[in-house]
Structures are given as structure tokens and as C-alpha cells.
């Protein structure tokens, strides 16, 4: 099989999705924290998707759920169309194809294992050496080289403390690449790294997409990073995706007031008045009723959303579907504006279709769970 064929095959086959996933944790006081509350997301081979949001938005929980490290109480994770099996064997089969690169490379590597041992572990777990017909040393060297660590042999016997931050991050990526996955989920791959190494790691992710047809989900709070490498972007707030679409559209004309605020505080953004939201994401044991963003929403506070204020406070929003093409946002104000435009133009749909509010089962469930 040629590289091009392999790439084409991977990009059509690989598809990981979260469908209405809800993940709950019980606090010591017995309250239920809903870390994910109906999250939809789709990642396919050959594309880079950025999952962005503040700390506490649930983005890391979603990444962990996608590889079976957290168990949803509702909803489903699907790999190539079929539901993830939560048996040991099922999870192992999934992780053969979907690899997670953890945040904080200093903590994620075993300090008592050499680089060689760390990278070879995946090969041994999945018995890949015998199948490949090559030696383990060759495969480890190849993985290190494709993560940009050259010449690989010089690093075999090093321990994590002997490496720089950028090298450790590459060793983690090499360990994931060794099993030749189709998707890579990288949690904040560059947040702890120096400015100079940051660009190199991002370029590496793009190169792997180009050469191996790898699909990449990057979890990050850095919108500049998303602009740098992502085809699509999904913005999370309090356990749900609130805006999603092609990166260019979402970052140049954000619809949701939350996305607008996030974008306005990126330091290098000039010409945007910074909208600094007060406080932090609310406690997920007490998800606000109505739109979950309403207590911090600048549009509601400034009166710009006065016409839909009752809906913002009382009526919950439909969950955004995992649409791989369109630009959507879950906001009453955006929906109201779209309705006005649609009435004036006579056309019912524009390129951006917001999820309009509904009074169906979803909102009843939310109103019950949110305030009690």
C-alpha cells in the first residue's frame, strides 16, 4: 500500500464521536457534579479539531471519556460507527487506534523508566512487534524519529529528568505514535512549553496529519493555537459545546457571547475591546437554569439581549449536534437575530444555523436538574 492510499483509507475509516455524553461525579457532600451534560463531538481521520474553553468547562473530561477513561452515565462514544465496548478487551481494541497524549509531560512519564521503555510499552501491550515482522528497537527508533527526536538512539537510555520539556512532550507523542494510531487526542500539548518549542510541536502535529492521515483532537484554552493548526473548533462551556464550526468562521465572526469574550482577551488581539468575564465557570453541581452561560453573559448584562432575557434565564437550549460542516451556536440572542434576518430576507437559513430554543424534554430535564 502506498502512503497516499494508506492516508486515504485512514481518513475515510477513522471516526470517533461523542453523542449526548453525560458524565457525573459525586462530591464528598453527596452532590452530583455534571462535568459533561450532553456533549456532542466528532473527530475524523485527517482533520485537526480544537476543543477550547476555560478550566472547568469539561474539555479534559470529554477527552478522557473519548478513550474510555471516564464512563458516561448517558450518551455514547462511537468508534467507526459502533458503540464503544467498555470491557477490558473492547477498550484495548479502541486504544490501539485512538491514543491520548496527557497534559504535563513531566508528570505523565514514569520517572524510573527510560525513554526506550516508555515508548516500547504500547508496542508490548498491543503485541505489535511480532505482527510487524521488525524488531522492537526499529519500531521504537521509528516512533522517536517521527516525533522529531533525531537521532533516536541517543535518547534510548535517558530518563525523563534528563530531558528538556520539549523533548519530554515529544517522547509522549512518540509513545502514542508507536502503536500507529488513527487518532491522537492531545490535552494541552504545548501549554507548559517555551514559546520556541511550541511552534515545533504544533508543526509536528500538522506533519503527522499530512504524512500519516492522522486525525488530531487538541484540547486547549489557547485560541491562537487553534488558529495555527485546527480545521474545526468546538467551544465548550460547563459541559456542553456552545459553538462549533470551521476555525476561520468561528474565530473571525464568533456568534456566541462566550466565544466573543474568549477571543477578546487573547493578548495579541488588537482592535477588540477586551470583554473580561467576571468570576469563573460555575460549580457543575449547580448548573444555572435557562442558558447555562446567562449569569456571566456580557450581552445579557449590558442589555443587548433584553428582548430575549426571559428565554436566557428560563428556557434551556437545544444541544448542538456534532455537525462536521456548519457553523452553529447555542444562544437565544443569536437565534432571535437569525429569526429577524430570516423574516426580512425571506430566506429561512443562512450559513450559520443556530440551535434554537425548545421547550421539549431537554429543557424540562434541565430545569429539574439545574436548580434542585
Amino acid at each position: 500500500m502506498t502512503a497516499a492510499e494508506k492516508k486515504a483509507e485512514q481518513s475515510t475509516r477513522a471516526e470517533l464521536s461523542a453523542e449526548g455524553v453525560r458524565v457525573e461525579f459525586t462530591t464528598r457532600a453527596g452532590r452530583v457534579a455534571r462535568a459533561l451534560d450532553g456533549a456532542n463531538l466528532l473527530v475524523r481521520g485527517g482533520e485537526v479539531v480544537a476543543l477550547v474553553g476555560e478550566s472547568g468547562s469539561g474539555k479534559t473530561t470529554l477527552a478522557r471519556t473519548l478513550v474510555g477513561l471516564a464512563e458516561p452515565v448517558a450518551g455514547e462514544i462511537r468508534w467507526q460507527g459502533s458503540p464503544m465496548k467498555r470491557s477490558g478487551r473492547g477498550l484495548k481494541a479502541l486504544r490501539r487506534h485512538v491514543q491520548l497524549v496527557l497534559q504535563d509531560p513531566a508528570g505523565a512519564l514514569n520517572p524510573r523508566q527510560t525513554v526506550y521503555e516508555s515508548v516500547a510499552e504500547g508496542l508490548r501491550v498491543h503485541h505489535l512487534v511480532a505482527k510487524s515482522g521488525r524488531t522492537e528497537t526499529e519500531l521504537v527508533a521509528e516512533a522517536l524519529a517521527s516525533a522529531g527526536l533525531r537521532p533516536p538512539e541517543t535518547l534510548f537510555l535517558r530518563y525523563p529528568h534528563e530531558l528538556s520539556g520539549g523533548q519530554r512532550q515529544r517522547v509522549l507523542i512518540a509513545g502514542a505514535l508507536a502503536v500507529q494510531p488513527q487518532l491522537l487526542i492531545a490535552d494541552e500539548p504545548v501549554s507548559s512549553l517555551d514559546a520556541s518549542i511550541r511552534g515545533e510541536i504544533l508543526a509536528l502535529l500538522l506533519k503527522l496529519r499530512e504524512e500519516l492521515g492522522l486525525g488530531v483532537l487538541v484540547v486547549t484554552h489557547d485560541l491562537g493555537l487553534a488558529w495555527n493548526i485546527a480545521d474545526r473548533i468546538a467551544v465548550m462551556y460547563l459541559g456542553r459545546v456552545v459553538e462549533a464550526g470551521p476555525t476561520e468562521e468561528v474565530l473571525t465572526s464568533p456568534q456566541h457571547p462566550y466565544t466573543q469574550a474568549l477571543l477578546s482577551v487573547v493578548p495579541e488581539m488588537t482592535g477588540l475591546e477586551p470583554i473580561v468575564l467576571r468570576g469563573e465557570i460555575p460549580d457543575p453541581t449547580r448548573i444555572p437554569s435557562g442558558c447555562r452561560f446567562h449569569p456571566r453573559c456580557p450581552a445579557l448584562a449590558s442589555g443587548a439581549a433584553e428582548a430575549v432575557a426571559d428565554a436566557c434565564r428560563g428556557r434551556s437550549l437545544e444541544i448542538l449536534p456534532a455537525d462536521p460542516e456548519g457553523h452553529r451556536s447555542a444562544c437565544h440572542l443569536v437565534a432571535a437575530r437569525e429569526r429577524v434576518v430570516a423574516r426580512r430576507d425571506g430566506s429561512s437559513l443562512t450559513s450559520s444555523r443556530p440551535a434554537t430554543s425548545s421547550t421539549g424534554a431537554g429543557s424540562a430535564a434541565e430545569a429539574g436538574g439545574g436548580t434542585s
Partner: protein
Amino acid sequence: MSTSELLEMRDVHVTYRTSEGELPAVRGVDLTVRRGQIVGVAGESGCGKSTLASTVLRLQAANAMVSGEVLFDGQDVLTMRWGDLRAVRWVGASIVFQGALHSLNPVHRIGAQIAEPIQVHAPGLAEGRVRERIESLLEQVGLDPARARSYPHQLSGGQKQRVMIAMALACDPQLVVADEPTTALDVMVQAQVLGVLSGLVRERGLGMMMISHDLSVLGDLCDRITVMYAGRVVEEGPAEQIFADPLHPYSAALSAAFPRVGDPSARFAPSGLPGDPPLPWDLPGGCTFAPRCPRAAEVCLPAEPVLTSYGEGRAAACVRIGQPDETQHHGSPGEVAS
């Protein structure tokens, strides 16, 4: 020296004495911070920026040899008597350390930790007055005064970082040194913390020295930026110019690492700088940046470039500024500049 100059560092050298020999971490740095001014110090890990900051309050490690002058309000911190130094610490200048998330004592309440420097430096102060002071400090950094009764584990990362800032302000210092104050925080919390810091400088006329590897943050917040590489200043000037129009190739690489959202040239083109900074015991001859520099040429090799003035308040240490790029490094023969 005019009174507006709060901190003046002159030709500061710091060398660590280790079993492997002497490691020069800072090699002749000049830096000035005026009242009401935020000065940024940028560079990668290992370029000497935190070592430089530690000399402001003579907090450098025991194996560090320091020479030069660090004048705080005209007095040299490096040669000051111990009692005078004690008066400068907290009251004159204070430091917000990197990794604040782990700097708080987990078994003491926030209020007690902020109270400590106040009680040490104003021993006679009544308990009620100390409590008032703590509450007003927490308010200044945008926290609920009731938080004084919380333990560190009950706070989020952004809240802990604000507590660290409140603590640094406890004794009303004139100078605050902030070492990577927002590195571990997400964008919104970073914006909140930076807003608190710049508000303090504006309202109270503090001087601030802010250390970061993120040139986009410094460009946004600071008045001036000093870029360090391998223990030396390679460029210095007004913040927005350094970020938007850097002279030194190293500053240019740091600036390009943070893309402007909306800039089409940055789409699918992340910009990095290959290689690592040189090790202090193995500095290359000539320009220390040359081995990683995209513009390096023969002229860079004989001697380490000196900081040269390029117009109003700008200086850079690079012999290639203003020279055309040579064709053996870049481009096709068609692009030869005649």
C-alpha cells in the same frame, strides 16, 4: 539619578558555582524600572530571567556570585546591610513567584498567610486593623473578603494567584516583581489577573518588573520590554514595537510563536525556533544565538555583538540588522539582491 527611577540594574553578572565549574547565568545586564511603569523581561527557560529577578531582593541561591549594582531607590541592594535589606523586602519591593499554585501553605488559612508579612513589618498593629487590611487587599485583587477564612485547596488556580498578588501588596511596596504570574492560568483568568496588575500600576504608581516567555502578553501589558538570551540583553525597547516590529531575530522568533488570530499567514503555519538555548558552561563563540539563527552569517562569528542603539529608546545586539540576507541561506537564485 532622578526620583522616577525606582530600580536601576547596572552591569549585573550572576555566576553559579557548581561542582561542574562556574556557570555564568546572567552576563552584564542593565535594566531600569520607573514608577508607574511595567517593564517586561522575555526569553526562553534558561536565559537568565528568573536569576536576574532574584537579585532584586538579594534572593539569589547561596552558590551564586553577583557583581554589578542593583539600585533600589538609589541604594545598592547587593551591598546593603542586612537590616536595611530586611526593610526593603516586602515594604520596598516584593515578588510574586512563579508556580504560585504551590507557594501557599496548605495548612494555614489565606488570611493568616497574608497577615504574616504585615505583622512582621508592623509588629504593633492591632488585630482588628490587620484584619481590615487583609480584607481590603483581597478586595483590591477582586476576591471576596470572606475568602480570608478559606484554605488554599478551596480556591481555584486563578484565585490562588490573586492571593499571591494580595500578599505581595501587603506592605504597600513600591516595586513588584512578577515571575510568570499567569503561566498556569487559562485565558480568561489570565485576563482577570493582568487587569488587576495593570490597574495597581496605574492607580498607585507602582513600578513593576514582569517576567514571561509569552511576548504577546508582555506586548499587551508592558511599557517596555527587555529580551534576554543566554544571560544577555539582545533587544530592548517600547513594548508594542518589540512585539510588532522586532529587530533581533530572536525577538522575531518569540513574537512569531504567538500567532495573531485572524492573520491568514499563520493558518497551518505554526512558527517555532529549532534547537535549545546554549548551556551556560558551553557558550558558543561569537554571537550566542548564531547556531539557531535563521539569518546567521560569517560576520556573526568573530565576536559577541554589543547592544547598539537603533533610534529612540530602542537597542539591539545583532550585527545583521539592516544587512541583506545572503543567498546561500535563503531563497532561489532569482531572488538575489544586487
